[in-house]
């Protein structure tokens, strides 16, 4: 009886704790099952240290062929679910093959870990970082335990940050000039700008500014693009006349944005666009899309 139960229950309990767990910032992370859990936040080049304790179920011994901890950076494509591509894989051996009779604790350390990519949960792709503890056993199969953590990388303000200024129009119908104050925005930034109407011959109903995220996965002919509208922000109500200038002020903080990711490990890219949409009284849409670069500004606190 005991034997049978033992076969379905893990033979031991593994816990992973970070050494600075109390002081480290925790951020929410959405799991595959839809639950959101709080996990520690790291950035590239940080030391990831902690302890792993293995505690056999009372009165049992755990026979093993060695214990190791891996730090994995993985990319998972949803069309290829369950198949992880590890772009980072570091291993630390914790114990030589042997037997564990009672709770045993192993410290571990990955120092100045290179984690160039950020944790990302997209529509078709996921990038995650995880600590994986493996107790290798022969016939009984290995025992593994995972601990997710989130990586975010900060950038300094860009040295060059030009405004986006453009005149667009449909001949004899609509001519506008718009200006966004920057081309690169940090995640809590404010988009300022204005739209200047040079010619209006259509009856405009309203004008929105949209923030669109374009996620492309795969490469070559297998490239798959998914676009989401993250923000739809009404800029103008009613029909302007020639000469009107409409202000733009869009706070980015309410929206769940990430930095722009360009060609992450040749697997995917995430880009952001500002889409200016004018809708006329017949519900025809006139729009102009401009890419903006998003970056994560280092918190100066």
């Amino acid at each position, binding site marked *: 009886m005991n034997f049978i139960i033992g076969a379905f229950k893990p033979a031991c309990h593994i816990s992973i704790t970070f050494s600075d767990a109390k002081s480290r910032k925790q951020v929410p992370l959405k799991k595959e099952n839809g639950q959101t859990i709080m996990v520690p936040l790291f950035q590239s080049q940080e030391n990831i240290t902690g302890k792993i304790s293995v505690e056999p179920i009372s009165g049992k011994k755990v026979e093993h062929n060695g214990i190791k901890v891996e730090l994995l950076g993985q990319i998972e494509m949803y069309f290829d679910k369950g198949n992880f591509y590890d772009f980072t894989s570091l291993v630390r051996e914790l114990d030589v093959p042997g037997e564990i009779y009672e709770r045993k604790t192993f410290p571990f350390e990955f120092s100045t870990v290179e984690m160039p990519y950020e944790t990302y949960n997209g529509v078709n792709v996921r990038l995650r970082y995880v600590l994986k503890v493996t107790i290798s056993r022969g016939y009984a199969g290995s025992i593994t335990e995972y601990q997710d953590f989130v990586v975010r990388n900060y950038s300094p303000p860009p040295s060059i940050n030009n405004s986006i200024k453009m005149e667009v129009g449909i001949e004899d119908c609509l001519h506008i000039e718009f200006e966004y104050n920057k081309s690169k925005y940090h995640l809590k930034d404010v988009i300022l700008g204005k739209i200047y109407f040079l010619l209006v011959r259509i009856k405009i109903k309203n004008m929105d500014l949209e923030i669109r995220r374009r996620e492309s996965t795969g490469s070559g002919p297998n490239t798959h693009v998914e676009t989401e509208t993250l923000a739809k922000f*009404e800029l103008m*109500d009613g*029909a302007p*006349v020639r000469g009107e200038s409409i*202000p733009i002020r869009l706070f980015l903080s309410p929206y769940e944005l990430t930095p722009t990711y360009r060609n992450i490990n040749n697997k995917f890219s995430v880009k952001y666009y500002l889409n200016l949409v004018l809708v006329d009284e017949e519900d025809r849409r006139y729009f102009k899309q401009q890419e903006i670069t998003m970056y994560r500004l280092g918190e100066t606190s």
Partner: protein
Amino acid sequence: MIADGVEDEEKWLSAGIAGLQQNAFYMHRALDSNNLKDALKYSAQMLSELRTSRLSPHKYYELYMRAFDELRKLELFFKEETSRGCSIVELYELVQHAGNILPRLYLLCTVGSVYIKSKEAPAKDVLKDLVEMCRGIQHPLRGLFLRSYLSQVSRDKLPDIGSEYEGDADTVMDAVEFVLQNFTEMNKLWVRMQHQGPNREKEKREKERSELRDLVGKNLHVLSQIEGVDLEMYKKIVLPRVLEQVVNCKDELAQYYLMDCIIQVFPDEYHLQTLETLLNACPQLQPSVDVKTVLARLMERLSNYAASGAEVKAFAKLNNAIGKVIEAQDNMPIAGVVTLYASLLTFTLQVHPDRLDYIDQILGACVKKLSGKEKLDDRQATKQIVALLSAPLEKYKDIDTALKLSNYPRVMEYLNARTNKEMANVIIQNIMKNKTCISTAEKVDALFELIKGLIRDLDEDLHDELDEEDFKEEQNSVARLIQMLHSDDPEEMSKIIHTVRKHILTGGRQRLPFTVPPLIFSSLKLVRRLEGQDESVSGNDASTTPKKIFQIVTQIIESLSSIPVPELALGLYLQCAEAANDCDLEPVAYEFFTQAYILYEEEITDSKSQVTCIHLIIGTLQRMHVFGVENRDALTHKATGYSAKLLKKPDQCRAVYACSHLFWLDEHDRIRDGERVLLCLKRALRIANAVQQMANATRGSGGSVVLFIEILNKYLYFYEKGVSQITVESIQDLIELIRSEMNGENAPSDPAADAFLASTLRYIQFQKEKRWCSGGEI
């Protein structure tokens, strides 16, 4: 279809209110539990109801007011939040996360109000931000209400002089700048409204726009309330900026309303000091703008200001501006031009009543504008000209002044015949009302020149369409006017009479019967005045003597002969005869009587007129004392002769017994001929008898005894006068005769005759008793 529209609108409104109330309910709950996040969410949803395009301004206003009330609660909540430690800057950002612009901006204005109050940022920065952000609403109706909300919440927070929001960084200039900008944007939205929607609903839209005008005008009111807007700032900044917007918007409705608004909200003193700027804008307005009313109201204000004691020197500027407006508005109807001048005239009369030259100048300008055109036929314009010409009359209450204005008659030249008449009537009414006496021949001449529309036919065609009643009315007023022409100096008066005669003789047969009599009476009045004077004082060299006047009078009456109105002429001759009688001019009097008799014999053929005339003749002749026996005999003889020859017997009878008076004059010993009195009465009795017999013969019944009773009364009269030929017996016989006639078989019942007799008998009885009482013999 329209009814449906109204019904639908009601439905939409109530749906809007319901939505608003529901979200307001959740918002209240959030406010009560200090839940900022929910408060923002539900308030934004509540405000989303204002995004509707389906309501007319009127209904939208209703919805807006409800939202407004709710926003006051929210504002209070925001204020509490900040005192609970929530950063106002954060709050200011937070409300801007709302995705829909209209709710976002209402919330922004609401927080902005708290922001300014907190003084964490200069008021001007917040105001500037708010007024800029509101540009996002380009829909006219929604934009107007949003900006009106902004104006409302910011009114008490402007960095005005003496306001708590005034500081180093905030000056009154910022307050002015803010209001001006909001005003400009609102006006643009308002003007734009007319181009929205289908063309066929244009009229409806203009009406709706008109309903919204006060939202725009309110800004000007706010400007006028800013303490810091002194004359200097008004002159340099406020007025030029407002006018720039007014002129540039090129919209009739807006320009008219806003010009009026400027005039009404800012102080008189400012207008006076900036008159040129304000007036310069007028010619730049759209040609369809009713500038004349705008200017009229400005002038009205200035003249009231002047009336309050201020010194207003504005004539030249106004005159100049009006000239420019007329020049600019090329196709301004002449009515408009005249209206403008009329209001300038009103202004001038009020402010510079002593400057007749100004007034003449205005009239001159009018003449210039009217010249080269046909006579006015535009009703509106003529109405205005009448107003223009009436104004000085009303002001000075004296036609004399108007007669001094050289351009006055020149303006009248341009009136058509009808209006000319109307104006002439106005002039006469004015003279009547003010009892103005026109006392020189020269003025009379000018006056008649002015009112020539009434004096003679100016337009041949017109006469046909003229209403008889109206014509009589007009001519009666001319007659009244003639009575007002008077000079105490007989020489001058005589000249006046000559002048009037000259004018009225041009009037033609229709008018003479009305105009001749008053002139005759006026002349006779002069005669009586001269008669009172000592002959020696007036002297021989005096050219005005009763004789001379009688000569003119004769000529004037003769002019009636062509019409002919013999009854009237006869009456006038008799009047003249009486006047001559009073002057002791026997030959003249005799001549007048002769003329009257000739008319009677030759012209008066109608038997009814004859009766009237003969009584007139008898009455007048009875009063004449100037005649010697011979003349008198001749005239009385003729009169009795005429009497006996009347057609109807009863008329004969009455005329004959009236003749009895010609032989007995109380005040004249010479004329007391009892025999002939009795003769007349007997003759009358005979005729009465004949009447009775004729009645018997033709109708088989006795005629009325009224004639007998009338004769009885004559008997009684002469008996009392002491005519010895009339005896008590003859009276008693007559009474008997009457009684037997009345009781005769064929006598018809005649209650009136019965009563007449009864009262006559009662009178006799009374006289008897009186005599007895006074102790005399019976």
